[in-house]
């Protein structure tokens, strides 16, 4: 093989490898910044919750299980519903009274 062609081929391969490394590092940086953004959002959304749980998956599992318990108890309850409060929620009033902790709603 012509040495010049070989040099060009090898240089191209080296550039491709360099691009691969840069891409992978950029991917890692993106995920890290996403993690940081998540943490920042979390802090903003749940200032009233005190410390943010370090383990989001555990937190999700606990909250879903708690909600399942609450819904089961409510479904079995013979108490009348809070019609006034429920209607107030439908009119989008009162959602900021502590119940709504979702930032996107």
């Amino acid at each position: 093989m012509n040495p010049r062609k070989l040099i060009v081929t090898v240089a191209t391969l080296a550039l491709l490898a360099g691009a691969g490394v840069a891409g992978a590092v950029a991917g890692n940086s993106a995920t890290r910044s996403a993690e940081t953004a998540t943490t920042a959002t979390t802090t903003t959304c749940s200032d009233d919750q005190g410390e943010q749980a370090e383990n989001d998956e555990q937190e999700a599992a606990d909250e879903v299980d708690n909600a399942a318990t609450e819904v089961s108890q409510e479904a079995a309850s013979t108490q009348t519903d809070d019609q006034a409060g429920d209607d107030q929620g439908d009119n989008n009033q009162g959602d900021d009274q502590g119940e709504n902790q979702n930032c996107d709603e």
Partner: protein
Amino acid sequence: MRAPAFCRRSVAGGRVFALVLSSLAAVALSFPVAASAGDAALRTTLTQWSHRIALDAQGIGLSAARRHPRRMTRRARHFRLDALRARNALAAVRPSSARGRRAKKLALAAFYDYAIVGRQWALSGQARLRGLRAAAVGHARIAAQYARKGSALLLAAKRLLG
């Protein structure tokens, strides 16, 4: 006359060797970084959606506790949509290790179960609004079963990702 030509050839050969060596080193360095990037992306996606699901579930629990079935139903539909969005987001991630692939399967199954949970909560709320207590209890019971299963799958996925 022959000696300088030999020197030029050996210098050119040395340069080619150095180039080959450096490119091989670059390729070798890129593999571990790329491998960890896929699993890290999966971990980040799982964390983000777990957090969102936790907030949704918290709202549903509060609505149920305050006896607001209409609001609870609306939030349950939102919970279901978020669970389905989480599945789509996770499906787009390509894990780079066997553990990552296993974790992805578990996480997808977990959010599928959570989507069922959201559906059953919404049905329970609707039944409650219509005064169908037995139906409301039945849907809530099914939701609780899937919630337990989904949570176990989610925690298993998390353990695999470390």
